[in-house]
């Protein structure tokens, strides 16, 4: 029994042996549904836990019950804690924690949508993922729901939005189809003139049933599905899936592969952050710097293409390591590309923060307070811009991060400026990391062999601090060692409510820049 296990057992007031060491850095407690509320309170208050994911499993064939699982990050202990409860299929419901832990809000409603297991005591027990024309009885993630089912659409009225009333108050519907090349999502603003009183977001237009699809794919092929979850986070999701599989199969990833995975992840981070910074400039019509940022991003993508043979870093991660080793001459090419980038990037940031008309647009715009960010369980860039010092690369080190020196930039403003500055400073830290890694790449193979079969009836969590925030994949196998369930949590799913919270009080024409400062993925959210 490790010291973590003992201290967690004590803090939760559970009997000795209830907290199990599942994998390194991953504890599991089986709880009775009635104890969920008390235990979650203790996890968040005594252990400083932050909810990362909440999901259900259909274990009726094996145990005769549904499972409802919560995954908490315990950053002070560098460990994750999973609380798992068995739910009787005869009365499929579980106690909701959303009232006290708003981060669980969408998760619990998604469990209801896809499993038909109701969260009891949820403050707003309505559909979140399913749209109105989906028939009530079709529970897509239950095992007895064939993945090729043709579901008849239910006719009915249009979605009833919450009314916003008052003198001179009206609603502005925007989307789901937008101008420009972005994904679909419906925004409904309740406005009094220009100021926004209330924002309702309707997503899941690009729900593709990815979690269901994983259950039908051979687990080796799941990697390709994982990297397609959100196109801008190909490395992040692929790595999270690979981590889960490797932990399931007890594969030790060689040091060189771990280092190269850091390179890939940081390259993904800087090209996305640079693009986001440029997009912020575009949205406030600061044209020259927007163009410079685009050119910088293009330079990075070309370096990616040259070194890894892929611009957006798809197909670079392998189960057990990476697909392509870095040749010495490629390492030099990457180094010099990064040095050129660094100089240009610094002057781009100087151009932005020294321009009064630009800073006037981003200062104080779209504030997400620290309290709101904590309550909503906001993660990643958005959390760090609201004063939450959390970064999995440091709190739950994966790959080679444990041995690397870097800072976690945190800003207190919570506004567009803070999210911009977190990105800018993270790019600087990424460059620091990349130079460290490239300076001393370990001399080992770049992939370890993966066994032919996964252990049956097992499960493991894979996690990555991707550029937008933590991506987690929880993978469970069935009695044949095939994938029984994959729960994918993209940081966007946790952060969309943060955007909804940051917008009211601002004016309508500032919405695009606030939205862009979060830059959440629709595809990753909808899956």
């Amino acid at each position, binding site marked *: 029994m490790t010291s973590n296990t003992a201290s967690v057992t004590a803090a939760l007031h559970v009997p000795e042996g209830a907290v199990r060491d599942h994998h390194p850095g991953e504890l599991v407690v089986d709880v009775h549904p009635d104890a969920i509320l008390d235990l979650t309170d203790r996890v968040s208050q005594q252990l400083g836990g932050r909810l990362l994911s909440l999901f259900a499993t259909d274990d009726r064939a094996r145990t005769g019950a549904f499972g409802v699982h919560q995954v908490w990050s315990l950053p002070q202990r560098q460990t994750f804690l999973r609380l798992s409860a068995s739910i009787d299929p005869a009365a499929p419901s579980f106690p909701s924690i959303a009232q006290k832990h708003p981060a669980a809000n969408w998760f619990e409603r998604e469990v209801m949508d896809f499993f038909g297991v109701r969260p009891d005591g949820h403050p707003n027990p309505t559909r979140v993922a399913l749209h109105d024309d989906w028939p009530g009885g079709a529970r897509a993630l239950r095992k007895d729901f064939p993945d090729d089912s043709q579901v008849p659409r239910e006719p009915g009225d249009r979605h009833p939005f919450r009314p916003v009333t008052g003198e001179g108050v*009206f*609603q*502005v*519907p*925007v989307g789901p189809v937008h*101008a*420009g090349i972005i994904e679909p999502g419906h925004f409904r603003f309740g406005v009094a*003139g*220009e100021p926004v009183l209330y924002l309702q977001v309707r997503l899941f237009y690009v729900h593709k049933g990815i979690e269901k699809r994983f259950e039908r794919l051979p687990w080796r092929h799941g990697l390709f599905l994982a990297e397609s979850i959100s196109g801008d986070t190909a490395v992040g999701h692929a790595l999270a899936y690979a981590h889960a599989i490797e932990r399931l199969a007890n594969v030790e990833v060689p040091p060189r592969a771990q280092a190269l995975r850091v390179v890939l992840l940081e390259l993904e981070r800087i090209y996305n952050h640079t693009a986001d910074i440029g997009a912020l*400039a575009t*949205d*406030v*019509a*600061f*044209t*020259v710097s*927007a*163009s*410079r940022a685009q*050119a910088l991003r293009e330079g990075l993508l070309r370096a990616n293409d040259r070194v890894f043979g892929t611009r957006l870093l798809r197909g670079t991660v392998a189960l057990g390591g990476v697909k392509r080793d870095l040749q010495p001459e490629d390492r030099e090419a990457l180094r010099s590309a990064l040095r050129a980038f660094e100089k240009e990037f610094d002057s781009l940031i100087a151009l932005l923060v020294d*321009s009064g*008309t*630009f800073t*006037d*647009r981003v200062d104080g715009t779209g504030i997400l307070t620290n309290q709101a960010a904590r309550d909503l369980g906001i993660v990643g860039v958005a959390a760090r811009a609201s004063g939450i010092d959390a970064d999995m690369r440091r709190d739950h080190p994966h790959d080679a991060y444990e041995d690397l020196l870097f800072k976690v930039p945190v800003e207190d403003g919570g506004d567009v400026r803070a999210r911009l500055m977190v990105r800018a400073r993270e790019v600087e830290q990424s460059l620091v990391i990349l130079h460290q890694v490239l300076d001393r790449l370990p001399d080992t193979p770049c992939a370890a062999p993966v066994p032919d079969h996964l252990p049956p009836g097992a499960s493991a969590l894979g996690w990555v601090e991707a550029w937008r925030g933590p991506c987690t994949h929880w993978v469970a196998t069935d009695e044949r060692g095939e994938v029984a369930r994959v729960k994918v949590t993209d940081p966007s799913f946790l952060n969309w409510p943060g955007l909804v919270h940051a917008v009211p009080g601002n*004016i*309508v*024409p*500032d*919405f*695009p820049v606030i939205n862009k400062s979060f830059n959440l993925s629709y595809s990753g959210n909808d899956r």
Partner: protein
Amino acid sequence: MSVEALLALVAALLQAGGMLAAAPLLRTGIKKMKARLQNRQGPPLLQGYYDLAKLLGKESVQSETASWVYAAGPRAYFATVVAATTLVPVLVAAAPLEATGGILLLVGTLALGRFALATAALDTGSPFGGMGSSRDMTIAALAEPALMLGLFASALSVGTMNLGVLVRDLVQQGPSWHPSDLLAFAGLFIIVIAETGRIPVDNPATHLELTMIHEAMALEYAGPDLALVEWASAVKELLYLTLLVNLFLPVGIATGFAPGALLVALGAWAGKVFLLAVAVTLVESTNAKLRLFRVPELVSVSLGLAFLALAIRFL
């Protein structure tokens, strides 16, 4: 109809035609210069004409909820802008239809076009059109008086509200560096930025409906209707720049219809408008767009400048 009236009508048609022909070049030119400042190639200089030809060749699409107001909007907007071109001296120190009215008629005609477009944008019931109209009117409530005051400041130096007479006198006096003229020029330059929907007031290149002002009003239009709106906006921009250069830098303007003088006038006009277009480009490229509620502050500055210019005339 008297011979003068007939000649004035011919001149009006020629001038309106000339402005219509030249306007797309101005817009594309600014786009091109902006692109060069961003290290991009930018569109070919004739792109404005290609776009208009393309739009004019398409069919019109009309929302089911739209009434005749929607269809009339672009036509009225286009007509008022074309009419306004005949009230301003361009190459010759005389406006073709100057006998019909001066500064007040010009401002009124442009306001009528604005009213037509704003009403039409409300007609479909699309929230973007409504937002565009409301924003445009908010700005216009300040920009129109500022435009008038700025023009009055110039008119006061000569003592006439007739733009033709005014420019004739200014040409005789030569360029003036009177503080009143400088202040009025600065004020009117801001108005030109605001009225032509340029950064930092509006962004003509944006795709973000929620931030649009002028573009939001044109959002529902397609095909020939859109061509009319775009074309009229381009002409309006050229008209404002022409007014500015002819009132505040009255050099090279022809006083008669001698071919040589006209040619010089054409070159001088094109050169001056180009310089002002460069200034517009630089403003667009070095500024971010203002927060919407700051735009009235900017336009108020121009109102203040125009007021000062006017007051100095009385000192």
